[in-house]
C-alpha cells in the first residue's frame, strides 16, 4: 500500500519535501514505516530514534498498524511555547 507521510521542521529540510509517499506492505506497523524511511532517506537515520509517529492526529506507538488512507505524520522533538 502507498502511504503519504507529512514531514515538519528540520525533517522537511533533510528530506527536501513537506510530504513523501512510502510503499509499505499491507499490515505494516509504524516501526516498519520508520525502517522504510531510513532506507529511502539515509540522512534521516541519526534522527530516527527521536521521531514519533502520529496517525490521524494522534501519537501512536511503534507497534501500531498503518492502514491505507491513514493521515500519517513524523513528528520531530517538539519545541513550542
Amino acid at each position, binding site marked *: 500500500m502507498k502511504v503519504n507521510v*507529512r514531514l*515538519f*521542521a*528540520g525533517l522537511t*529540510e533533510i528530506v527536501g519535501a513537506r510530504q513523501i509517499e512510502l510503499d509499505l506492505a499491507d499490515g505494516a506497523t509504524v516501526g516498519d514505516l520508520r525502517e522504510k524511511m531510513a532506507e529511502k532517506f539515509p540522512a534521516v537515520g541519526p534522527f530516527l530514534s*527521536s521521531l*514519533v*509517529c*502520529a496517525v490521524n*492526529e494522534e*501519537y*501512536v*506507538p511503534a507497534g501500531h498498524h498503518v492502514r491505507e488512507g491513514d493521515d500519517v*505524520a513524523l*513528528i*520531530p*522533538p*517538539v*519545541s*513550542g*511555547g
Partner: protein
Amino acid sequence: MFFVTRDPLDPAPLVEAVRRDESGAVVLFYGVVRNHNDGRRVRSMEYEAYESMAARKLEEVGEEVRRRFPIDDIAIAHRVGHLQVGEPSLLVAVASAHRADAFEAAHYCVDRIKEVVPIWKKEHWDDGSAWLKGHAVDVAEPEPTSPA
C-alpha cells in the same frame, strides 16, 4: 478557546473567555520571543506547526488541566509564522476562585504544551539559523485521558 493562528495574539478575548462571576483570580501567561538563547543573540524566531493536530493537542492539554486543577476555565492560543523579539508566541489564560490554583494550573499547562504539542521553532541569528533541539514526544507515557 484553543487555537493556532498566524495573526498577532490578543490576550483580551482569552481573559474574557475564561473569567466567570465565581472567579477571584485570572492568571495570564505570555511566552515571548527573547533576544538570547544558549549564549547566542537571537534576532527572530520562526514557528511551524502541524496546525490541525496542534489545535487538537492544545485542547487536550486544556482538558487535562481542567481535570487536574479546580479551575473555572482555561484558554490557550499559539501563534505560528515569523515572530520578532518581544512578540508573544503563546498565551495561556486560567481563571479560578483562588489564586494558587490559577498559578499552578497555568504553569503546568505551559510545561505540558512544550511536551506534547506538535510545534517547532527555528532561531534566526545574524549569521545563520537552526531548529531548536526540542522535546521528544513520549508515546509510551501519554497524558492521562480519563479522570485521575
